[in-house]
């Protein structure tokens, strides 16, 4: 166990981009983020905790998200993450950069 789709097979930085995207609609706790990504990706992306939490800490460190304790829908104490204004800007910038990268990679793959 424990090898639940660690993001080493993702492009570097992509996990952070996905987390920012997941938080875009509103604040979520860690489990909520994992579930959101799993559902949206049709069970393809299963983010492990050992990848998720360091990534969240990096986002906190850069000031892109904020964390505060709250109560979850099933009445459990949980730490909610919310995008900051800087995080929103970062999401836009990284999204654009990601699109550019993907198109570049596709162009390379398409060439013969």
């Amino acid at each position, binding site marked *: *166990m*424990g090898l*639940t789709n660690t993001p080493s097979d993702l492009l570097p930085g992509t996990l952070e981009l996905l987390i920012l995207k997941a938080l875009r609609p509103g604040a979520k*706790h*860690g*489990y*909520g983020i994992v*579930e959101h990504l799993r559902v949206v990706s049709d069970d393809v992306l299963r983010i*492990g*905790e*050992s990848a998720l*939490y*360091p*990534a969240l*800490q*990096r986002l*906190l*460190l*850069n*000031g892109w998200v904020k964390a505060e304790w709250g109560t*979850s829908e*099933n009445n*459990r*104490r*949980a*730490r909610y993450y919310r995008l900051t204004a800087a995080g929103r800007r970062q999401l836009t910038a990284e999204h654009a950069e990601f699109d550019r990268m993907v198109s570049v990679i596709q162009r390379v793959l398409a060439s013969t």
Partner: protein
Amino acid sequence: MSALLRRLMYLLGRSRHDADLRDEIEAHRAHRQDALERDGLPSDAAAWASQRAMGNVTLAVEDVRDAWVSGAVDQLWQDIRIAVRGLRKNPVFALVAIATLALGIGANTALFSIFNGLILRPLPVRDPGRLALLLNGSWSYPIWTEIKARENDLFDGAFAWANERFDLSRGGQSTFVDGAHVSGRFFEVLGVPAVRGRMLTPADDADSAPDGLVAVISHRFWREHFAGGDDVIGRQVTLQRRAFTVVGVMPPGFFGVDVGRMTDVMLPFAAEALMRGQESRLASVGSSWLNMMVRLKPGQSLEQANAALRGVQPQIRAATVSGVAAARAARYLTRPLTLASATTGRSSLRTQFETPLFAMVVAVGLLLLVACTNIASLLVARALARRRELSVRMALGGSRGRLARLLFTESLIVAMAGAALGLVFASWSGALLVRQLTTWESNVSLDLVLDWRVLGFTAALACASAIVAGVAPVLGLKSVAAGEALKDAGRGLAGDRRFAVRGTLAVAQIAMSLILVTAAGLFLRSFASLNQLPLGFVPEPLLVAELDLQSSDTPIEQRGPRVERLRDAAAAVPGVRSASLSRVSLLTGGGWGANRIAIDDGPMPVEDRSDQRLWLNATTPGWFETMGTPLVNGRDFTDGDHVGAPLVAIVNQAFVRRYRLGRQPIGRTVRIGLSNGERRYEIVGLVGDSVYTSPRDGMMATMYVPLAQIEPRAFGETVVLTINAARGQRAAVERDVAAALARTEPTVAFTVRTFDQFIDATVTQERLITMLSSFFGGLALLLAGIGLYGIVAQAVRTRQGEIGLRMALGAQPAGIVRLVFRRVGVLIVVGLALGLAGSLSAAQFVGPLLSQVEARDPATFAGAAGVLGAAGVLAAWLPARRAARLDPATVLREG
């Protein structure tokens, strides 16, 4: 920046953070368990499954910590631990390095704290930035009266003060305290409140002061003379034989407005009239004796203030011009009044010590460089010795950058420890230096506060030292290859070019040390020759008693007979060979002069030029004999030369040279121009030259007149009684004369001093520079020696195997010594050559501080190079000799 802040916050709340994370991950697990239960799993199975799915929580927490701290802080901490461990393993190195830096940084900090106290620190008063000083010398009281009348129109207030020494004793020998007369609003305009009682007010400075004679004392004076008691207000203090009532105590740290002087007692100007009676200077336009400052209005610039002052200048000058000599009146009326910013107060020390202080700051900076070079050299040696360790670390995956940081951390720690110790050394040596400035005539007192400027300076020095000392070993690191040291098992051979940077360091060190030693040599020679300058009299048996005739209320006309009685009393003391009076004492810096002189029927100069001054003195018969100045021609004064008899004069040989009197000066006439007419003297005697102001100024033209021919009303307030004591009895004579004077006239105030004290005071600056530069030079010499010794010892150690082999093959010990010297000799010679070149170009800065010695004095240069060369050879010879005594068999066996 904000990321750094968040990291810091994290470090501070580390345990809370870890707990947060653990809670969060537990919450995550609980959510998963809930989901599993919703999918139909039994509760315990769901708990177990969720637990398993989580993986290692602790590891996750560690991962996160890495994300937060990025290892930087942790690694730094690790670096510090490793560096401290390394230093503790080699305590001798650590101690030498730290002590060296402590001396270097301490000396720098000491000088800087003096510089700070003297030049940089603002006055401890309210809003010192708005204070301005009326420039160029001192002013008369009538001018102050004019400015005072306009102080609130032109400025936000003004004040005047005049520094004085007050005699604290009630009778006999004087004990002085530094004080001042101040104007009524002095404290109010400065914004200095009392800590006890009240400060002076304009009412105290009026002719009819309601509280009588009042004084305000400094915090220090209060602690020392009244034991800091609360009952000080209303108590009496004796000043100039008169009782004053203490009405207030100044706050601690307030010393007045003269930086370098502790003004312990402040009296209103009105008290001056009471103390000096008929000779009060309050009404005199001719005596310039006070200083003035103004407080600018808020928003008023210095230019505006100057313009405002010059606008009323004609009225101020015109109101005070009566009484100014006609010859000077034109200049007096037009000389502009100028204000200058006085944020940092006024200081006579500043101009006197600015150049030497600057020279010493440069010298001490060089010294610190030498010290840093030494430490760099030691660090390189250590890195060299640890090449094996470093190489292993590299082989195990330590990055070059990380290793460089490790080495650098070491020098940083040494620098920090050195700086901390240096601060201790600085506060001690700084105070010691300031004490050296105090002479018989001025008590120098400077608060050396460790304020933010000094601490910042020291911290910057420590960082700079760490960089200078730390760069060389890091550069040397480039030549270390991973695992290389594992291959060669420490059998170094000649020509090891790695860490050759040490040789360069040694050359730099020798060069800088030579500059310091040369400067020290020049200052020493200059100081020594100053002390050997001829004085023109014999100071050893002499005692100089200055009699203050103002302390008694007897009329001025009585002063002549009074001093004659006092002289007779002194002359009758056993052990006194002779006692004579003069108006001026030589070498006290004071003087009496004439500016317009003509010989015989020559034309009298119209211009009043103070640079053409002729020095005057008035003496009683026998004074030249008492002083030991030879009478070359003619006669001494006699009892027949008194008021009413023809005016006579004695001149010295410098006078004859200056006024070209030729071979026969006796019988010629000297005419001295006065504001109304002139006075004619007949030359009756010629005496040898003697120094008047200071030995440095050389022999100056001087004319002596009989004390008995001075008009009784013009008799000065002080007179000097010079006593020639029998050999070996000076101390006893001093005591007995003091007793005899007090017995003869109980009210007379006097001080007894020796010429040693006067001569010392004329060379304060030179003595200080010589002391400091000798200390720096000596230290640099020592450091260079240690540095060179370390290098040679190290080189010999690494080549031990080779040397053993050579000896086994028949090399003689002398040959081994030669072998070692061949390489060291090059370093010494190159270092000396560079140092000589540096000294030659430094000479132009040293030049202005020297007297009697050329700035490029070849003997001093050669001597300094010789001393440094000898020290270098000695430092190299010790390890070379050890090498030559090696037993080849042992060396080769132990290899």
